């Protein structure tokens, strides 16, 4: 009887327990699914928040560019650095594009010697510098005639590169990397692009140019350059401060540099003390998020929209 009892009563209990378990299991599944959905939505919300911060940073960077594009704005103008609140701000670096060497003017002009000297000052030996200058010339000149140390189509083909050199002026600094041997410059001077331009006109701005560029340009000693650079920004060595000397003329600058005024006529046509173009680097900051815009713009007069060259958007 006992056996029979257990035979009939267990299935009933089992069914009752199973239904409760089933309900609990279904609720657990739904709960888990909901929790998963909540986590996913929260993750997406974080992403939206991040994207919004990115957009705000982009907007602030554009605001910086809008200020920097105004004619007459100097790099020390307070509007170029603004804090909207604790989290949001923008800052703009305004530098003269004419402080850089116009690579096309140098390699296509009659005197590329400043370029050669610059490479040597960076640590290349004379032979390496000669080769590189000729190769840069071959890249930009319109002919297929190989310069003494240059490289034309066959040399590039031998290096596995088709359709090079371009035989036209450089359109960007990145294009310079394609010239055979530029890897050596990158080795000795990884930031070499900061010294060149293809956008500003050919006149080097002596008031803004780096010491090493001025040395290479005039083939003068470090001491000569220092006597000029220590004067051009005043005692504190910082431009746009109260101790800056009054407007320096080109003759005064050359005199301080110890460069005779009757030096090479071509060199003198390629230097100046003002800028035709500015490089604007505007960074919008929202918390830890940053967005940087970089644009080359004419520095004087009314700027047309199509005269802007956007390098970073």
């Amino acid at each position: 009887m006992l056996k029979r009892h257990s035979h009939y009563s267990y299935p009933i209990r089992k069914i009752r327990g199973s239904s409760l378990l089933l309900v609990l299991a279904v609720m657990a599944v739904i709960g888990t699914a909901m929790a998963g959905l909540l986590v996913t939505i929260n993750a997406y919300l974080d992403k939206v928040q991040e994207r919004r911060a990115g957009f705000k940073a982009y907007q602030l960077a554009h605001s910086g560019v809008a200020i920097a594009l105004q004619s007459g704005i100097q790099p020390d103008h307070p509007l170029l650095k603004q804090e909207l609140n604790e989290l949001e701000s923008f800052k703009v670096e305004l530098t003269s594009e004419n402080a850089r060497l116009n690579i096309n003017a140098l390699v296509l002009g009659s005197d590329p010697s400043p370029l050669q000297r610059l490479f040597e000052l960076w640590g290349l030996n004379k032979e390496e510098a000669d080769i590189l200058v000729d190769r840069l010339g071959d890249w930009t000149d319109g002919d297929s005639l190989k310069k003494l140390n240059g490289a034309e189509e066959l040399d590039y083909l031998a290096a596995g590169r088709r359709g090079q050199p371009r035989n036209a002026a450089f359109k960007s600094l990145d294009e310079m990397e394609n010239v055979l041997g530029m890897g050596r410059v990158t080795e000795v001077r990884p930031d070499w692009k900061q010294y060149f331009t293809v956008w500003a006109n050919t006149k080097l701005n002596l008031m803004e140019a780096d010491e090493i560029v001025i040395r290479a340009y005039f083939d003068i000693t470090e001491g000569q350059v220092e006597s000029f650079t220590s004067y051009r920004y005043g005692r504190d060595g910082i431009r746009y401060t109260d101790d800056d000397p009054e407007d320096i003329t080109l003759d005064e600058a050359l005199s301080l540099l110890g460069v005779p005024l009757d030096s090479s006529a071509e060199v003198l046509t390629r230097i100046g003390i003002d800028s035709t173009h500015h490089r604007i680097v505007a960074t919008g900051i929202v918390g830890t998020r940053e967005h940087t815009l970089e644009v080359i713009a004419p520095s004087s007069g009314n700027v047309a929209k199509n005269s802007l060259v956007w390098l970073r958007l």
Partner: protein
Amino acid sequence: MSMRRKSSERGLTLIEVVITVGLLMLLAGALFALISSVLESRAIMTERVLKQNRLIAWDHFLRDTLSKLERETVILTEDAVSSGIANPGYRIRFINATLKLGPYAEYTNESSFILETVKGQKGAVILQLIPYPEENETGAQGAIYPPLILFDNISQIRFEFYNAFSDEWSEEWLMNNQKPHAIKNQITLQSGETHEMIVWIPHA
């Protein structure tokens, strides 16, 4: 033996029922809370995305339109209050300024437009765009398009105009012989969120 049999056939005890119901209620409550959070998060997400998209559209509209202004465009403010915070009724009139944006293609032929603030619901300010054709030779205006609402949940909106010649910002621009060199716009939404942007206006 008969006692045992009876015991096996009886129903659930009161305690069993109470515990089971309590457990189910607890689980149902937790599930309800979870579903509520999911729905709330979803609503927040939708609102944020919508707000974000509106701000992006506004940014593009202002930047694109102002950067394409014609040489002869005139910008004039009307009814600006002294604090610079635009109350309903504040208008910025863009004359000879063609709308060229894609989404507003239907207004492409219109050569002037107005940015206007009007009173919205629950104390909000609405910012709307009114494209309108220039007056014809007889002085009569053609058909006016319905306003296009850009924002309907603004608590404060401020425009400032930059004059590069004097290096000054002003809350009004009444010079019909020249355009400002930049426009600063600050929008505070009813949610408390503030957006600020400065837009360059080319003069060449």
